[in-house]
């Protein structure tokens, strides 16, 4: 994931801490489960409800958010010493807006149909709470390389939820995954029907809720954290 970018950020950090030291690996892996941005930090739920009807847009969205969180974390962390405290939000917003515009334009240029399906939600990555949340909570106080890993980790953690929810929704809502028919025709002949509720946003909320339920039942550490 971060192969081509790690060279750019490496000189900042290589002196003391190994690039993938234990601490850095934790920064990357924590948001995937124990500190998941959606199910534990409860950030970015709105877009998780909106773009998970089908798997493909969900994956594109996850990649987009991962890129934006990673690079905005990196950039803000690089210039964190020079940002005056009173206008830091505006500076963060400018950086995020720049990255979001880049993602949006790339999508429009190379994947126009997906871009149309995601419509405003790419532009709205800028309001995705995960991006600003990680900038404020992590990048403003950490060195660039861990910040970058934190951005990648949180983007991927968000992506995991998106993919899980969208696979379930597309499978039961339209009987397909990634646009391929999965539910065989003979089941329909037997009287099976696609579940229309899966196509509506409330079901995504239920699924995320069930995910949180299972996650906390498995991991007692998370109970009563938030």
């Amino acid at each position, binding site marked *: 994931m971060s192969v081509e970018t790690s060279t750019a950020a490496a000189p900042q950090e290589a002196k003391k801490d190994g690039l993938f030291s234990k601490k850095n690996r934790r920064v990357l892996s924590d948001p995937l489960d124990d500190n998941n941005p959606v199910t534990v930090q409860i950030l970015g739920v709105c877009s998780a409800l909106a773009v998970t009807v089908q798997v493909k847009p969900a994956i594109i969205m996850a990649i987009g958010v991962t890129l934006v969180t990673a690079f905005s974390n990196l950039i803000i962390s690089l210039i964190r010493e020079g940002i005056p405290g009173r206008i830091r939000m505006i500076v963060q917003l400018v950086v995020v807006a720049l990255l979001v515009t880049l993602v949006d334009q790339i999508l429009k240029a190379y994947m126009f149909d997906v871009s149309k399906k995601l419509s405003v939600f790419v532009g709205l990555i800028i309001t995705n709470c995960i991006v600003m949340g990680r900038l404020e909570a992590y990048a403003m106080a950490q060195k660039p390389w861990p910040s970058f890993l934190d951005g990648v980790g949180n983007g991927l953690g968000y992506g995991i939820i998106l993919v899980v929810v969208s696979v379930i929704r597309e499978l039961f809502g339209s009987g397909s995954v990634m646009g391929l028919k999965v539910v065989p025709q003979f089941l329909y002949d037997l009287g*099976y029907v696609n579940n229309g509720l899966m196509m509506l946003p409330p079901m995504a909320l239920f699924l995320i809720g069930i995910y949180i339920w299972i996650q906390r039942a498995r991991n007692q550490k998370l109970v009563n954290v938030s």
Partner: protein
Amino acid sequence: MKFLQRILASVKPNFEKGGRFEKFHPAFEALETFLFVPGQTTAHGVHVRDAMDLKRTMMTVIIALVPTLLFGMWNVGYQHHLAYGMDASLMDNFWFGCWKVLPIIVVSYAAGLGVEFVFSILRGHPVSEGYLVTGLLIPLTLPVTVPLWMVALAAIFCTLLGKEIFGGTGMNFMNPALLARVFLFFAFPAYMSGDIWTDLSPEAGQAIVDGYSGATNLVAFDANYHALPSAGDMFWGFEQGSIGETSTAACLIGALILILSGVGSWQVIVSCFAGALLMGLLLNGMAPADVPNHAMHTPAYYHWLMGGFAFGAVYMATDPVTAAQTERGKWIYGLLIGAFTVVLRVFNPAYPEGMMLSILLLNVFAPLIDHIVVEQHIKKRLNRA
């Protein structure tokens, strides 16, 4: 009775602590206390002692549901034979309907109680009685043609997400049976609206009569309220609709049982009916004079008779867990349910039956209503002091 008691006593050691089936103790306990009054008492603290425990309350509601159930079974057969233009006797109609309705009830109980048993064994708490009523309410709110696997899915959904997730019976903030119906309504709209209200399984040598229309009264009155059948027909329930909802008369018998036994709150029932009537009258007053067929002209009391209004007001809105708790709150809660139902019916043809959605909406608002009532009361007392 003695015989049953002896059987239970003989297998009981297996389910006690250290017994072979210790894990399944909740399941055994549920069956035992369902049949007999439990032998143990609470260990400490002051408790209300009353013969009217949760199981007896639930049984009362089930008894109150019997009239609607029996009438619903008969009506299923009646509508079926009517659509084919056949003359059938009272018992013919009843047995036909009974044969169609029983599988739905069995599936609903099996699926829902299955979830309850699994959860009580996993969590080690006793099986609660809440599902006894829910399991019967679900089939009564569904059309008779609903596929059985959908019933099972809805029952599982409502037990899991309507109740267990909040901590089981008594902790839910929405009526589980209505949640099951609303789940099916949005998940499988093709099976919950349209021409599905009458069982049209083919009859040898018979064809559907020419005048047959699958539209319920709720759909018909949106276009032209003059097309509604007579008030008498709608009151007694000779109309198409979900299994248990058609007969206002049967619902009123149930209401009588609930009120006399003190299980259902008469304030909620009365205020529901009053709310619908008041809103109906208001709309009558505002109805456009130049469109004589407009739904707003529908006589206000028709709303009592059409669709599932009476059923919802008597059995659903009165659910003691999800309704408002304060006396004044109950009146506000009921009035709003009635009013919203009529508004939804008249102005939103996409949702012909407003009862379901307005009860669920007010379920959500019930705690807020209670809060406001209590706050107002405190403020009044403070002013007087």
